[in-house]
């Protein structure tokens, strides 16, 4: 990226962030469902759920999955914002100006990153209020933040595709429902070894489980094993595919 591209992206990110700060309710809405899930599973179901080898408070077991759900529900707004920009013709106006073309997309991606990290921080705050504690060092916190940032980038680039190609608002945001559902069939809520054969096989071989296991291990100050590499492989792989797909759709739309 040249200085010109970075400058343009920064200006456009500022524009998108102003939209977010003027409707803070989107961040609240994004956090409400995951927080409700956390309250329900900790205070209603938590006492009856066996965590297997993981002893301690269930909120500590649950939090990594809830954080991923927060990000998954947040990116539907990214698709919505891109769709709105597409239909109102602002993309066309930007094209007629001396602006780096990729800057428009990257601004939405970076806005998504910032907005989702704020939502994640809100969820963290609620978790701490509910009794979540971790004694991890700065390095582990950075690792968690890095994984969540990478996960957000992955899903955001996945959101760019429906945002650019959807025909309606509901179509633009509907793609996020299966993503929000994925953590349910993973190790996010219960250990996978308590699930019956085919469900267990799916849960253990889908991207959310290694990501959840990695974040959980980091919080619990346990060795992260091979999960971190599987998690990174999934995320980088999906990111590359989604980025390529997003750019192809973008070029087709504005060429």
């Amino acid at each position, binding site marked *: 990226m040249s200085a010109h591209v970075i400058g343009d992206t920064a200006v456009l990110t500022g524009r998108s962030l102003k939209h977010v700060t003027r409707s803070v309710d989107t961040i609240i809405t994004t956090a409400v469902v995951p927080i409700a899930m956390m309250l*329900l599973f900790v*205070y*209603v*179901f*938590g*006492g*009856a*759920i*066996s*965590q*297997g080898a993981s002893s301690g408070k269930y909120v500590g077991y649950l939090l990594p999955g809830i954080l991923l759900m927060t990000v998954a529900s947040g990116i539907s707004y990214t698709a919505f914002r891109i769709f709105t920009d597409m239909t109102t013709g602002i993309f066309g106006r930007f094209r007629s100006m001396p602006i780096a073309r990729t800057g428009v997309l990257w601004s939405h991606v970076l806005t998504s990153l910032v907005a989702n990290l704020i939502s994640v921080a809100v969820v963290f705050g609620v978790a701490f209020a509910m009794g979540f504690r971790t004694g991890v060092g700065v390095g582990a916190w950075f690792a968690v933040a890095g994984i969540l940032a990478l996960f957000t980038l992955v899903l955001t680039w996945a959101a760019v595709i429906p945002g650019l190609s959807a025909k309606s608002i509901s179509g633009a945001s509907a793609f996020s429902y299966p993503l929000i559902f994925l953590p*349910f*069939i993973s190790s996010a*809520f*219960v*250990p996978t070894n*308590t*699930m*019956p054969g085919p*469900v267990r096989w799916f*849960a253990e071989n889908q991207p959310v489980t290694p990501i959840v296991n990695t974040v959980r291990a980091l919080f619990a100050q346990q060795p992260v094993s091979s999960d971190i590499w599987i998690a990174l492989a999934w995320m980088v792989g999906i990111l590359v595919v989604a980025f390529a797909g997003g750019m192809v759709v973008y070029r087709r739309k504005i060429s």
Partner: protein
Amino acid sequence: MTAHTLSDTGVMLGRSMRHITRSLDTIITVTIMPIGFMLLFVFVFGGAIRAGTDHYVNYLMPGILLIAIASGISYTAFRLFNDLKGGIFERFHSMPIARSSVLWGHVLTSLVSNLVSVAIIIGVGFAIGFRSSAGVLDWLSVVGILVLFTLALTWIAVIAGLSASSPDGATAFSYPIIFLPFVSSAFVPTDTMPGPVRAFAENQPVTSIVNALRALLQGQPVGHDIWIALAWCVGILLAAYAAAMVIYRRKFA
């Protein structure tokens, strides 16, 4: 009810039932969410939940049936709201028809359609391993409780349907009712919950109804839960019926 009222109600019921049979997707939509919850809790969470039973589906089934009914009655409110806005009530009132039959037509339609939904869910339950040691009398008791529960919620739906100002408003009342089974003994035993949550769960209507149904389906003694369940259902039914009739008369005085 006179023979005249009964026959009018029969005609109105036939009319409402035709609407349902022409859009079977409503029954499918009503059953999809409870079946989704049942599959999720049995096959994903069930193995990790300590519910004091070998087959978690047997523990879960009563709560799922109540969720199905709770999600089904939103359609009753919606249909009632549509009739109200479409002006069909006024047309019926200009005819020699028993006034109460218009409402009872909707109520009985709700009862029939919800029992169909319940039957579908029990069928899916059997397919995924639900088994019951209940006798004929136990099953009749289960059906009786479900009918009473459906009637109680349907009359609440009538209030919403008559007084709402938008279709969303007509159906929104059902969300807290759908949520109630989650904070009850439907999914996990209440003694695993922390103090205040447990106090709420043990003293709200769904828990006693779920416990009574669960005991009946497993051929166990129902204890005093059945009387608490019946008291809740009858109490809510009478209060909702009275309120609905007041609103109905005000609307068409």
